[in-house]
């Protein structure tokens, strides 16, 4: 109650003082304005500060003109004039009225970085009271960075009127920073430290570290404790951020590798054209988007909803075509299949290059996939989040297909013992063709996802094929869980190595790790057991 009354009183005083300054004659600030044209840069900076402190309504406009280089003053000092938009004429700075007789030695008032900084700070103070929320937020953030004790009163005034939570918290932080610089009471300073520490981000850490230097002795333990606690929480958030990046990379790897795991696991063949299936999926997305853009522009935000099934069907059919025309002649000769599919990948790459050209194609992000949001100290972009959701969705759907459907049952039977499955009446050639189609179709869906975060070019697939192989070999063949664990492990390990070793060296370390890992477990993490697996 008492607090509310206090606030009200402060607001009242402020209102009165504002009215008073408004009522003051314009001539009151003319000496302050004229001071802008006299002396060296330090004096001019003082003049800018004085002008800002005057609170006159015209100050913002004058300072803006000054920073735009439109103000002129005699070299010897004296009245300041504003250059009129029309060439050669000068007008009065305050009234805007033409001035008949100007001194002959007028020169533009020069700026340096210090003066520009002072103008910027002054302008941001003035915008603290602006009705525009974004302007107030920007101004308070500026103040937080460049806390000047002169602005305390202004800030207090602005705080009293502020309703928006975010702007208010920024202002409170700025006020706290300023309080630390003034000789406020120990309690106030303590409260200020707590306010800053509550922000808990990197800025707060810098502020507190800076405050540590000239803080009174009795406050130092409190600051120190807050610094360590912020550092700990930042470290935890850093780990969380790395895990998030790792999950994001892992989900991309999962999407790219899971189709390969199926074809390799069931048919025992290495499909080197798998990367090109991903690429075809990405180009399908491009074509769907362009078509939709031409036919129904209002639907283009939902083009991905059309692109996913289109890519699945198209690449799936291409896959079945490849299986029926080439691969089925090569069963039992895995190394030859590897060569033939490599040849197919070259043909597909060159075909796309001939049709669409060698340059990158632009695939737009729909509005619901662009932008980012913060969770605590985590910055999460929407497109990465949706890709994680999408890849997990694909994973679960595939798992259900394998475990619950008749086709899945037949597929698992063929994986475990081809001849026995064939004897039980399963048409293994059909299972093979459909499996290859399924694996290719999933690669196509991976292409849709990758088109959102990577360049759509004929080489798209090449960048992922080796990583996909690593995931499959690491995770083990014939088990989807192995692929999941493999993809996420490699993704997270990659992102944790990056800060220490750099992106390239991190990748090299991962490759070396996998090469060594294969020596220990030649069949991967989750190897299928049983004699049927032996060659």
């Amino acid at each position, binding site marked *: 109650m008492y607090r509310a009354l206090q606030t009200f009183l402060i607001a009242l005083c402020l209102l009165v003082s504002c009215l008073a300054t408004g009522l003051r004659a314009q001539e009151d600030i003319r000496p302050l304005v004229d001071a802008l044209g006299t002396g060296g840069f330090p004096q001019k900076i003082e003049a800018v500060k004085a002008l800002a402190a005057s609170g006159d309504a015209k100050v913002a406009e004058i300072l803006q003109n000054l920073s735009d280089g439109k103000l002129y003053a005699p070299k010897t000092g004296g009245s300041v004039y504003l250059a009129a938009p029309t060439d050669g004429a000068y007008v009065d700075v305050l009234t805007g009225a033409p001035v008949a007789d100007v001194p002959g030695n007028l020169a533009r008032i020069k700026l340096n970085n210090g003066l520009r900084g002072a103008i910027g700070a002054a302008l941001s103070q003035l915008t603290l009271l602006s009705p525009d929320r974004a302007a107030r937020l920007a101004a308070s953030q500026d103040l937080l960075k460049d806390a000047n004790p002169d602005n305390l009163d202004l800030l207090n005034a602005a705080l009293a009127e502020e309703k928006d939570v975010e702007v208010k918290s920024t202002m409170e932080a700025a006020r706290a920073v300023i309080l630390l610089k003034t000789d406020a009471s120990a309690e106030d300073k303590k409260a200020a430290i707590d306010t800053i520490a509550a922000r808990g981000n990197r800025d707060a850490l810098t502020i507190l570290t800076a405050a540590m230097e000239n803080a009174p002795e009795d406050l130092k333990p409190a600051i120190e404790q807050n610094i360590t606690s912020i550092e700990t929480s930042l470290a935890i958030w850093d780990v969380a951020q790395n895990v998030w990046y790792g999950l994001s990379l892992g989900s991309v790897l999962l999407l790219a590798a899971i189709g390969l795991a199926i074809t390799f696991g069931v048919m025992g063949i290495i499909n080197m054209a798998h990367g090109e299936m991903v690429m075809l999926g990405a180009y399908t997305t491009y074509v769907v988007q362009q078509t939709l853009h031409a036919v129904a522009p209002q639907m283009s935000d939902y083009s991905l909803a059309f692109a996913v099934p289109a890519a699945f069907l198209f690449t799936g059919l291409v896959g079945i075509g490849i299986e029926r025309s080439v691969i089925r002649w090569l069963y039992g000769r895995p190394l030859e299949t590897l*060569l033939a599919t490599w040849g197919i990948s070259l043909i597909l790459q060159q075909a796309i290059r001939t049709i669409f050209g060698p340059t990158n194609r632009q695939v737009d992000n729909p509005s619901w996939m662009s932008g980012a949001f913060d969770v605590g100290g985590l910055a999460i972009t929407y497109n990465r989040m949706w890709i994680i959701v999408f890849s997990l969705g694909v994973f679960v759907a595939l798992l259900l297909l394998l475990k619950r459907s008749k086709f899945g049952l037949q597929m698992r039977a063929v994986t475990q013992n081809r001849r026995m499955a064939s004897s039980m009446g399963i048409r293994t050639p059909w299972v093979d063709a459909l499996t290859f189609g399924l694996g290719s179709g999933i690669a196509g869906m991976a292409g849709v996802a990758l088109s959102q975060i990577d360049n759509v070019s004929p080489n798209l697939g090449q960048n992922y094929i080796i990583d996909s192989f690593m995931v499959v070999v690491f995770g083990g063949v014939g088990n989807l869980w192995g692929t999941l664990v493999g993809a996420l492990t490699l993704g997270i390990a990659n992102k944790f190595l990056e800060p220490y070793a750099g992106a390239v*060296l991190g990748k090299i370390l991962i490759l*070396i790790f996998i090469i060594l890992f294969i*020596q220990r477990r030649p069949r991967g993490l989750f190897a299928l057991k049983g004699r049927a697996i032996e060659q």
Partner: protein
Amino acid sequence: MITQMLFSRHEKKVLWAVALILLAAALVPLANLLIPEGNFFHVPGHLVPLLGKYLCYALLALALDLVWGYCGILSLGHGAFFALGGYAMGMYLMRQIGDRGVYANPLLPDFMVFLNWNELPWYWYGFNHFAFAALMVLLVPGLLAFVFGWFAFRSRVTGVYLSIITQAMTYALLLAFFRNEMGFGGNNGLTDFKDILGFNVQAGGTRATLFAATAIALALALILSSAIVRSKYGKVLVGVRDAESRTRFLGYRVENMKLFIFTVSAMMAGIAGALYVPQVGIINPGEFAPANSIEVVIWTAVGGRGTLIGPIIGAVLVNFGKSIFTAAFPEFWLFALGALFVATTLFLPKGVVGTVQQFLASRKEQRRADAVERAYQDKAAAEAESRLASLEPQAAE
């Protein structure tokens, strides 16, 4: 014993091939240097390094064939050994530039000056001596293959898994050599060579000599491979290829046999790379690209794996085709190469040489069968005649 192995009976075809290669080693330089321009038999100067390049590729394909065709190890990383040999030679050539580089630093190659390095990294020491560099051309790929193979073969990584990790090996090296911090010139690699053993690399005489050296190296490698393949060890190697477990159960140390041939093959690939670099004039990380290694596999497959002449013919044929194609229809080269991969695996699994051999063998078989048939018929006819003859007197009676 080694001499006995080297000069014991070789296949007639291999000896013919060696003679042909040596003839080329003598004739191409002569035709380039002695026969005047304009003459029909003159070999133009730009063609000599191109032909030399083909022979380097042939040597690389032969090396791959030793492990793939005779031991069943499909290495998708042989380009790495080739490139390592090339880098060792490139380092020697870099050191030979001396103070003639752009920055005129007598000790450091240009790219190190550019990166503000002040002293030569330790691993560049010694490369100013040709003998040391030549040793490294053999040792570095050999050692890498030995260590890699030691781990891989002992833990019985076979088949597709081995192919994938060899691919990962060359990919890792590709990424590593792209880094400037590695001290191998990063993205640009090593180039701007001036001298080799004191002779200008660009000069016609040097190029002709390099071609001859490549041809001789290829001929020697062919003799060595033939000796290995025809030895007892070579026979067991084929056993490993066809039935690894059975060979192991018969008491052979399969992993040691694989390790030996893998290391020898890597060294041959290293020599090919070392001969390649001075003729082409540059070595960069692109040589480590997995796609290059896979291309070597297709040369071998086209020519015929499991034969010694096949990979040589395949490498020369495919690369000759590549030169023609990329000049005439650059758009279609990848189509042609891709189709070659598919067609070879589907229709020519034994390659050109293997198919011809099979055809000849079947004709020989046919001829023998014909001969047997004819002999039988002759014999039958003779018998009938003699029986007739023995009957005749009775008839006369």
